[in-house]
């Protein structure tokens, strides 16, 4: 065995270290870059305090996010709904309210909110089944959104157009609502509670 060959063989073992360096560096890059590059931040039209509103109403979330007679859920209230309390001049003195009243309420224009929990078209979610029939609290899935003082940053997946809340804030896709709202989360709760799990239960 020549020295040359010996040196080569020894060196081979040593520079596997470089492999490790490459591995660590790039997996870190992957962990950081995946959310940073994939998600765009989208501004809400103006700030909104759920907390302030909750203090004003008597029936909690349902005061504004109500059911229709046919059992369907209204979701984001219409500007008309806001009109039930807001008059054409601001009640408080925040600039947000001023914007709302002037730009939306008085013009009768709907507010194009970015909806954190918006599910895709193929999902059928029945608020009646969950909130009425099963008696779940809104918090169960929406967390303390109803007590928040301001709207947090809305992140939108550049590729899919989904809210970051769907995949979840953990880039590894872990966690439970409100931190994550994928199908598995629905299924976990359904199975834990013995709710049937055929496709059409939640899909349309």
């Amino acid at each position, binding site marked *: 065995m020549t020295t040359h060959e010996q040196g080569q063989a020894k060196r081979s073992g040593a520079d596997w270290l470089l492999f490790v360096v490459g591995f660590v560096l790039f997996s870190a890059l992957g962990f950081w870059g995946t959310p940073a590059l994939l998600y765009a931040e989208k501004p809400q039209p103006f700030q909104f305090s759920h907390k302030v509103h909750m203090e004003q109403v008597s029936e909690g979330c349902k005061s504004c996010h109500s*059911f229709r*007679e*046919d*059992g*369907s859920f209204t979701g984001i209230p219409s500007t008309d709904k806001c009109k039930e309390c807001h008059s054409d001049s601001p009640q408080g003195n925040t600039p947000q309210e001023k914007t709302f009243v002037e730009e939306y309420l008085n013009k009768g224009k709907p507010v194009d909110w970015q909806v954190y929990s918006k599910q*895709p*078209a*193929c999902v*059928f979610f*029945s608020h*009646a*089944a969950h909130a*009425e*029939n099963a008696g779940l609290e809104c918090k169960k899935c929406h967390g303390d959104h109803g007590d928040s003082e301001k709207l947090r940053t809305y992140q939108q997946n550049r590729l899919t157009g989904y809210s970051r809340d769907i995949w979840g804030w953990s880039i590894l896709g872990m966690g439970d609502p409100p931190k994550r709202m994928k199908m598995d989360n629905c299924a976990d709760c359904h199975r834990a509670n013995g709710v*049937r799990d*055929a*496709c*059409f*239960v939640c*899909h*349309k």
Partner: protein
Amino acid sequence: MSLANRYSAGEHRFGMVIDIDKCTGCGGCTVACMSENNVGVLYDETDKIRSITWMRVYQVDNGKPFPETQVAFFPRPCLHCEGSHGHHTPCVSVCPATATDYDPQTGIVSQIPTRCIGCRYCVGACPYHARYFNWFDTPWPAGLERPLNPAVAPRMRGVVEKCTFCYHRYQRAKNKAFLGGGKVEEMDYQTACTEACPSGAITFGDLKNPNHKVAQLAQSPECFRLLERLGTNNKVYYRTTREWVRRLADNYLKDEKPGQVAAS
């Protein structure tokens, strides 16, 4: 075998009875279905083997010369087979991606286009041609997207779709029941084709509920199912008094008579 025993355990088995002697082939059911379920129109719809019609009305004739010729119509939705042991429909068992399943509670065969990978194995497996592949992106020229029904998600190209017995209507009925505390009654959940049929040829309801009309009608000896002998054990019953129509509903050997052979 009694009607209810044909199917596996489970609260409901939604099904239909279609009276062929009442069907006039007007196409009202097909169009109502398309409008309800956001089935679009391609610019060339004469290519029938690539055209999507969840509720397809087949015209058949008795093959006799003038003036003994007669035509009849077989309206064909998805027949929501159950197959053997409770869920073995021709299509559900073959889907590799679980994009279709058999709901043990309602007996409805689902199809989830967003899960579908477009392998078309189920299309080949279904002898009724009830499953349709989206060969094209459906065009929605300006304005025509406005009548789309939000209760049904429009499909993209490259996936399979089919009749769902208007399952979203069941969902809506249940929503109402949840809020009102009642139950979903027979008339609360009716498919779009059933409602649309001007001659009332289609009856829809729960085959397991003896109070539902469909369960009563389906008991009639004049009722039969398409390709019953293959053992698809489906839930759409047809009815006719005409022997030649009945003979067209299944394959028979020369000396066999409809109604006298068992499912294999």
